[in-house]
């Protein structure tokens, strides 16, 4: 199983990355309990910020950004964590998501999480993140995790992280193995031949 972690924190280290790492650890542990072997890859959007903007402006992807997009596309599951800015995910987080090819996340199990200064913004999970990933046709785990500054000292956060990790692991295990179709491979079952395009 390949778990890719999308972390859009702006500082280094960031609480967003800290939350992402703990969610990844919980998911990995739950998957191993279920007998799966797990590989993880981390996409730190901060290091790709200029590449993301360059792609949006010029369509040209750097090799680093290309690798990150591939890590997301090839994953069996995604852990997506954004800081909360002005009632939503950060612009940079969304901009990275905007660079993904259409359909990249369709059918992919995704664990949503966000960080913020106060618990009063925790609704961002269900007002911003979940609609975005629903639009992208991802399968979001029922539990999404919000960590405000005060949560880092509370056992409640640990419990939510563990539950979210278990839910993501159950989703991944329940689904058939993901295989992305390659539009440039004529042997791919999803390839559309010209006869089909002509309607013959």
């Amino acid at each position: 199983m390949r778990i890719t972690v999308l972390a859009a924190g702006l500082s280094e280290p960031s609480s967003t990355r800290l939350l992402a790492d703990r969610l990844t650890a919980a998911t990995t542990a739950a998957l191993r309990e279920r007998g799966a072997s797990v590989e993880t890859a981390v996409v730190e959007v901060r290091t790709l910020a200029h590449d993301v903007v360059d792609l949006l402006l010029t369509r040209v992807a750097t090799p680093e950004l290309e690798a990150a997009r591939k890590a997301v596309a090839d994953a069996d599951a995604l852990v997506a964590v954004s800081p909360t800015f002005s009632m939503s995910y950060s612009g940079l987080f969304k901009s990275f998501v905007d660079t993904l090819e259409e359909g990249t996340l369709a059918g992919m199990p995704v664990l949503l999480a966000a960080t913020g200064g106060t618990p009063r913004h925790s609704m961002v999970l269900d007002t911003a993140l979940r609609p975005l990933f629903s639009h992208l046709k991802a399968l979001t785990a029922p539990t999404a995790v919000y960590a405000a500054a005060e949560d880092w000292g509370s056992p409640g956060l640990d419990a939510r992280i563990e539950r979210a990790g278990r839910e993501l692991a159950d989703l991944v295990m329940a689904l058939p193995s993901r295989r992305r179709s390659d539009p440039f491979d004529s042997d791919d079952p999803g390839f559309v031949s010209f006869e089909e395009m002509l309607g013959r």
Partner: protein
Amino acid sequence: MSSMQFGIFTVGDVTPDPTTGTTPTEAERIQAMLSYALKAEEVGLDVFATGEHHNPPFVPSSPTTMLGWVAARTERLILSTATTLITTNDPVKIAEDFAMLQHVAGGRVDLTLGRGNTGPVYPWFGKDIRDGIELAVENYALLRRLWREPVVDWSGKHRTPLQGFTSTPAPLDGVPPFVWHGSIRSPQIAEQAAYYGDGFFHNNIFWNKEHVEQMVRLYRQRFAHYGHGAPEQAIVGLGGQVYMAETQAQAIKEFRPYFDVAPVYGHGPSLEDFMEMTPLTVGTPEQVIERTLGFREYAGDYQRQLFLIDHAGLPQQAVLEQIEILGTEVVPVLRREFDRLRAPGVPDAPTHASLLAAARPEEAAARPAERDDVDTAAAIAPEEV
């Protein structure tokens, strides 16, 4: 003409010169484009291709009008497009316009079909960008019949039906213009080109070589799949963009102010990063030669190389100088080296003469030698540069 064709293509954008702040008028831009075509012939290039656009800041809305003028003032230049919109143009009008241009130009005509990626243009012509692929498929299937069948009965989804329709004039010598299908990212268009055994033009100016490689490989595989020959026999064209000076430092110094604020790639990656990620080469003629020869390593032996020269608001004089360098210093070496490296059995770039010879060998043999046989580039440029 050698086995490969070299030329220039223009988008036709009216862009301010960032170093002077002056913007050419439409009239000036159009005259400049025409002068590039004449210069291309003068220095021994093979192809001039113009874009087609229907929105400012672009001027070339009527390519066959422009190319007809060029045809009258040139003798060997092939007139082409980059691209002709197969989605929003009526295929009947494309059939007529390009057949007429063939007659006017004595057969020195081919065209590259593209879909166009500007959403608002589609409804101005009664279409919808979401039907882009479907329009390209249906319109081209009709276009082929109009050029090949004297009387056409047709009905489809996107155009009013035709009953007993004859497209006039018929193509010159009954040989339709060669068609390239242009696509930067859609595998369906590579598939379309392969299905018909037409050419595939991949304008790779914004793409890394991995992407180019997979697009061209798919086209070649499917060309063979549809029985047109071996993958190596498929007809491939590539784009590229260059700016040259005597030293690379000088070229970069001159081009950077244009690059940094250019409409498409400005305010993005640095010039150096962009050169690494795309075919853009800013440097000496030797560097352009080396880079261009490298394209065959991932695209295979190919038939047509077009350079984008008049981009980013470069002034007319600078563009004319670039075409001069291309014609006298770059292309003669590319011709020689590509020919030397070329694997046996790779077809030459198609021309009207070669298509006629393939269709009706007796008739072609009875004709006087085509002007194509004169290697103007070799006559102008010494063999060693």
